[in-house]
């Protein structure tokens, strides 16, 4: 039993905005005061401090085939950050792609307690889950890539929507996934012929379907299956100048159906293809505002080293040719693809500076904090360890202006950032870093401090320098146990893997089996992951 006494509580889900309040914990859950014996409870004095739910990251590449390829590819990155073994805690390395234990430690030390792995192809989800088991403390889940899946595209082509729906349910269960991820729908399949898709009406080779049809089919399937999280969409033409138009068109194409668009910084460029990108943040922010069923995360660029990794394999190829960096590609049978390219964002690069500015513009232009979430698309635009710095830029106009002075002149000239005076409040930060993402993920027990919530809580010293404040919380409590004290890890425990298992018509398995016999090199029987092979887990209901 723990009582967090006298802190200023920010719990936006329950409408609590900075009131002084006590929080009580028992059995890993938040309880009402009546349920604890105040004499026996350990009391944490939070007076003068800020109390929030544990941080929730809904888009971060922390595990699996691509992340590990990134580690293997770049020993130079592993040398940038090392941590020695101390007592019970494991050693680790990696600045943009930390090793597994270090990933868990760094997130916890930053006050984050739940992280969604942004993408895994189902064929290699077993690998992703093995890594997630070695990421301690935090709870996690995996989004499963489906936007280039042969079985689904075939069903759409034949108008067999029920079959597609049953397959998606089967696939989520088989891969122990949390939700539907769509990456460059159709474009990754076309890449297997050296091509891509440029707009929503382009044809996917061999399937006669279009990106538009794939998106709308999967969005509807999500509704029918009542999955907690809407389709998580990485759209077309990522990183290309002029892609804002297609981004807006894709947002509109959802026609009132729920969808989450990830790392839209990379999708909000004006200008002509191949030319210098201009900010189209205004246009994209407006589209987000006008379409209330759409949410976004930003993918804020941080200057310094990054490792790009995405299922958008054709994007990685063109990036590597453009910057002359080493390139990793993997085409995955019947399902997906992926690539990895290391990259350093530099202030003296006008494009990188423009990207940096666009991210901040989006944060400041989208007025409803419940629909925009803090991410760096870790480690694509920079490592998650840079979140506190982003928070400072959002909360502190003077600091932002100071940072703006350092970017490339050409980027300055095109930026509207100096005109944006908005400063995020602590309550708004609590929304974009925990309440909002938890709500959007459909996690009823996370992102808030109401009775019955998981006791994942972060207490911050209320410092003037918000980067300092959010980098080193005074206390982090996970499942009711103190895991971090004064920014230092003091306890290691296992987190849970969150997954869904929607019901489906078992008859579908006959068709899937036939598909496996024709198209896979792994047998149907060996493909599904058993619940006991993913470590401590929690099955979420779909209702």
């Amino acid at each position, binding site marked *: 039993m723990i009582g967090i006494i006298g802190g200023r509580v920010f719990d936006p889900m329950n409408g609590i905005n900075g009131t002084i309040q006590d929080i009580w914990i028992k059995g890993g859950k938040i309880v009402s005061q009546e349920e604890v014996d105040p004499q026996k409870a350990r009391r944490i004095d939070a007076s003068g401090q800020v109390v929030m739910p544990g941080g929730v990251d809904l888009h971060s590449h922390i595990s699996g085939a691509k992340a590990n390829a990134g580690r293997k590819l770049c020993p130079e990155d592993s040398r940038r950050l090392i941590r020695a073994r101390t007592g019970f805690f*494991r050693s680790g390395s990696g600045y943009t792609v*930390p090793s597994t234990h270090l990933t868990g430690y760094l997130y916890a030390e930053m006050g984050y307690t739940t992280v969604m792995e942004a993408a895994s192809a189902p064929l290699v989800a077993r690998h992703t889950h093995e890594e997630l088991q070695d990421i301690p403390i935090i709870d996690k889940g995996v989004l499963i890539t489906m936007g280039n899946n042969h079985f689904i595209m075939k069903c759409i082509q034949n108008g067999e929507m029920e079959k597609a729906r049953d397959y998606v349910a089967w696939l989520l269960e088989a891969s122990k996934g949390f939700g539907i991820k769509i990456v460059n729908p159709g474009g990754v399949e076309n890449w297997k012929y050296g091509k891509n898709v440029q707009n929503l009406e382009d044809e996917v080779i061999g399937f006669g379907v279009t990106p538009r049809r794939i998106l709308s089919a999967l969005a509807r399937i999500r509704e029918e299956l009542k999955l907690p999280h809407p389709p998580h969409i990485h759209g077309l033409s990522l990183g290309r100048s002029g892609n804002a138009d297609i981004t807006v068109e894709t947002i509109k194409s959802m026609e009132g159906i729920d969808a989450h668009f990830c790392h839209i910084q990379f999708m909000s460029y004006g200008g002509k293809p191949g030319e210098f990108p201009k900010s189209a943040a205004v246009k994209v922010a407006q589209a987000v505002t006008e379409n209330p069923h759409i949410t976004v995360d930003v993918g804020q660029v941080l200057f310094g080293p990054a490792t790009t990794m995405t299922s958008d394999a054709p994007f990685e190829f063109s990036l590597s040719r453009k910057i002359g960096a080493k390139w*990793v*590609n993997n085409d995955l049978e019947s399902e997906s693809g992926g690539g990895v390219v290391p990259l350093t964002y530099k202030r003296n690069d006008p494009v990188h500076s423009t990207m940096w500015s666009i991210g901040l513009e989006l944060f400041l232009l989208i007025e409803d904090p419940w629909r925009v979430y803090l991410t760096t698309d870790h480690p694509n635009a920079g490592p998650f360890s840079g979140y506190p710095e982003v928070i400072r830029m959002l909360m502190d106009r003077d600091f932002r202006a100071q940072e703006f002075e350092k970017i490339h002149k050409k980027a300055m000239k095109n930026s509207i950032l100096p005109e944006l005076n908005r400063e995020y409040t602590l309550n708004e930060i609590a929304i974009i870093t925990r309440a909002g993402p938890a709500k959007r993920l459909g996690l009823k027990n996370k992102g808030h401090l109401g009775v019955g919530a998981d006791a994942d809580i972060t207490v911050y010293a209320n410092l003037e320098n918000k980067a300092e404040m959010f980098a080193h919380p005074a206390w982090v409590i996970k499942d009711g146990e103190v895991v971090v004290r004064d920014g230092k890890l003091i306890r290691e425990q296992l987190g849970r893997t969150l997954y869904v298992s929607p019901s489906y018509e078992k008859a579908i398995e006959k068709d899937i089996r036939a598909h496996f016999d024709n198209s896979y090199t792994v047998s149907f029987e060996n493909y599904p992951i058993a619940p006991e092979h993913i470590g401590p887990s929690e099955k979420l209901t779909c209702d």
Partner: protein
Amino acid sequence: MSAVFENVTCKFCGCLCDDIAVEVEDRRILKAKRACPNGLGMFLNYDPTLQSPLVEGKEVEWDEAVSAAADILSRADSPLIYGLSSTSSEAQRKAVELADRLGAIIDSTSSVCHFPTTLGFQMVGGAACTLGEVKARADLLIFWGCNPMEAHMRHFTRYSANAKGFLTPNGRRDRTVVVVDVRPTKTAKTADRFLQIEPGTDYEVLTSLRALIKGKDINEPVGGLPSEQIKELVQMMKTCRYGVAFFGMGLTMTAGRGYNVAEIFALGAELNQYTRFFAMPMRGHGNVAGADQVITWLSGYPAAVSFARGYPQFGPGEFTSVDVLARRETDAALIIASDPMAHFPRKAAEHLERIPAILMAPVTNCSSQVANVILPTACYGIDAPGTAYRMDNVPIRLRSVMQKVRPTDEEMLMRIMEAVKQ
């Protein structure tokens, strides 16, 4: 009464064929249908009965063996954990944890096969695809310094030359097969083109291919090949639909090593400006790819990792086991699911003979003769389940076809870890 288990995975080689039907009676395997001779040997020869562990050649209780092993490891100043290529990823994870706690060096058998592949990959990256894409799409296959007809016997039928996929409905007839090697191997005999190059010229030949692709002209023979033949190969590569170059130890372990691999990776990448093209290693042991994966996600580096300073350090040539042993820089070894005495160069093997060694393996092998402690563990994929990574890094479940009576590597490593802590 015999029982048949379907969809069993053979973990003998990096193909990890998961379609084997294994017939078992009285804890003996009678048949392993669809397994190739290599795999069949593994299934039929394994004796799953409980064996006593040995300490200095004497049969002892398990507790005693565990404490003897822990004793050797805790006494050592610079212990080496080596092997891992035929154990499960679950056990590999424990092995890295043990190395972390001991401050040991950990290295996989890649030290004597594909470690140069890692170095080439770190230099230029690499474009790859899963074996199912090879089966479905590849119309040009190049086998460079590898001999799947003998080392990966079902590679052709399940994944490559003879496999039928949706763009290759006629199997072998829809594909062109090229073999590049220094001698006419069994694989070379099945090829549409066999390019026999002079030993040690792989790098020159690969560089010439890259030069031609970049538009330079070459009019002299390279590596013993007339320039016309090289130009023809370039033409085939540029105009194919989906090309894959598989390479083996003929490329990684000959003059040039990591640079050869960097060259073939760079060649593969550059060809993607014309078509789709990939270069992929033919990984040998069943889970050697898993060893790379696991050591990487736990430490940040794929092999040759030292925890001696308290944090992981990567040292090609420095912490690669062959070098560590040859320079006598280790004073104890834990060998897991491998046989270094059969494969290491003399100087390394001699030092291994000199230092206290623990062998954890399901079968007796050459290394048994030098090990001071022998822990006969279960065989993943026969009497213990687990996970392994195919040569294309696809994770595959290893099933068990009988109740185990032996401890697993994972259990042994956990017990040693406990004993080391005390």
